[in-house]
């Protein structure tokens, strides 16, 4: 028997999975997986700063929206830092990503210990942003995830020809008059949105897997982009449902990790299927 609580978590994870699957399809093809990972990690100091600000201001430091806005700002800052570092030409992008990911995350961890030393339990729940805790999802969080999924699906479908042109051959697309900078920014914005939205449920360590696993699995099962796109969104949703059910049936299994493991199972299965 599925309780109301479980149903909320299942639906929320499914919506999150669909959003990540749809956006992840293009994130993978554009080679943005590592950048997404960096943005997820870079969000932590922003989340901590928002909690500190909330405690100082006297508002509820555990209210989710301010924490996520703080995370989004820090994530965007991390993205900007990666691009600024690569643009100097002194280090390559992979090294820039590693530097930003580690330094922002370290800053966040130090910030966490500062918050922990404070009274009033301001730190309660903050550490869940690292590994995620979907089990505490409330009905309004699930609704928000549903809206996110609708928004991500609508954006990727509306931008489909542009995103395809960008991912396959950006120079050629630019020559045809496509605004590469704006299209790329739109894609990065969607990736950031999914990363931040996934933080409370899946955690910053695993959120990149939501983007990459369904897309990589869908790529192996499809030779054309429309099929890959639909399969990626569907696999994301199915992984969310099965992962949430699995963790509900085994008290103590973190939901985010269960979702990622289901996604990994699909990935491995399609890998074998393709080799056979």
């Amino acid at each position, binding site marked *: 028997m599925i309780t109301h609580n479980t149903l909320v978590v299942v639906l929320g994870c499914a919506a999150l999975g669909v959003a990540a699957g749809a956006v992840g399809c293009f994130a993978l*093809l554009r080679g943005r997986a590592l950048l997404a990972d960096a943005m997820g990690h870079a969000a932590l100091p922003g989340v901590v700063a928002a909690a500190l600000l909330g405690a100082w201001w006297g508002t509820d430091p555990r209210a989710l929206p301010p924490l996520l806005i703080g995370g989004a700002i820090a994530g965007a800052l991390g993205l900007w830092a990666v691009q600024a570092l690569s643009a100097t*030409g002194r280090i390559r992008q992979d090294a820039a990503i590693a530097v930003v990911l580690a330094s922002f995350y370290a800053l966040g961890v130090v910030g966490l210990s500062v918050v922990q030393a404070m009274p009033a339990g301001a730190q309660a729940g903050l550490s869940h942003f690292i590994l995620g805790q979907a089990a505490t999802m409330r009905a309004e969080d699930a609704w928000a995830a549903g809206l996110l999924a609708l928004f991500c699906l609508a954006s990727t*479908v*509306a931008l*489909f*020809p542009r995103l*395809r*042109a960008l*991912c*396959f*051959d950006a*120079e*050629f*697309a*630019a*020559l*045809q*008059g*496509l605004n590469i900078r704006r299209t790329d920014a739109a894609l990065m914005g969607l990736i950031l949105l999914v990363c931040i939205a996934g933080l409370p449920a899946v955690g910053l360590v695993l959120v990149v897997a939501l983007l990459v696993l369904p897309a990589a699995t869908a*790529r192996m099962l*499809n*030779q*054309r*982009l*429309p*099929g*890959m796109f639909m399969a990626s969104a569907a696999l994301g949703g199915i992984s969310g449902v099965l992962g949430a059910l699995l963790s509900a049936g085994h008290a103590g299994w973190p939901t985010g990790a269960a979702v990622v493991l289901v996604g990994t199972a699909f990935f491995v299965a399609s890998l074998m299927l393709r080799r056979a």
Partner: protein
Amino acid sequence: MAPLSINHLNVFYGETPALADICWDVAPGLTAIIGPNGAGKSTLLKAALGLIPSTGEVRFFGTTLDAARARIGYLPQRASVDWDFPASALDVVAMARTPRTRWWGALPRREREAARAALAEVGMAALAERPIGQLSGGQQQRVFLARCLAQEADLLLMDEPLAAVDAATEREIIKVLQKLATTGRSVVAVHHDLASVPDIFEHALMLNGRVVAAGRVADVFTPAMITTTYGAGLAA
């Protein structure tokens, strides 16, 4: 009106000048850009197309790049794209028609037929549905050429259309180039095989960071000019 007219174009890579004070009018017909490695041949095409920053003036058909966009086709180097992308040969060619697609990306039938016709023109009609990752190098180059054709441009800029292709593909591509010229299009191609220049092209630009010579192949493609362009080592 020259299909492409370049005036005092300069390109820098950091502090190093890659192209210095290029002044060049492209004549209608088939033109080869030749020169040693690092001479700036690809750089010249990319700078003219606004894909890399440059100074100077570039005019297409007497107007700006933005105004002439629909009349310009481009064939990049084959290595410049991800051949593992989930697309069929027809999908890739159809991307040339993207400005004419509907919002969700489904091609109107007329556009799809135009893409199919372009594939047929390079002898690839039978492989239209094949994933691009499963095509040979020569077949991939033909798909690229078909995409360039599907743009229905009046001026086609090609970056090494004959690089690393088999003999059959080379003959096929040359045939297509010559057909383009007889139907009033202009083609500018970066070219590596000096021996075949007089057979394929009417005009040549000999480049080595600057314009060494430009004009009719019969006039500029001389042993002395080749030596000047490439240095003494290659005067065979």
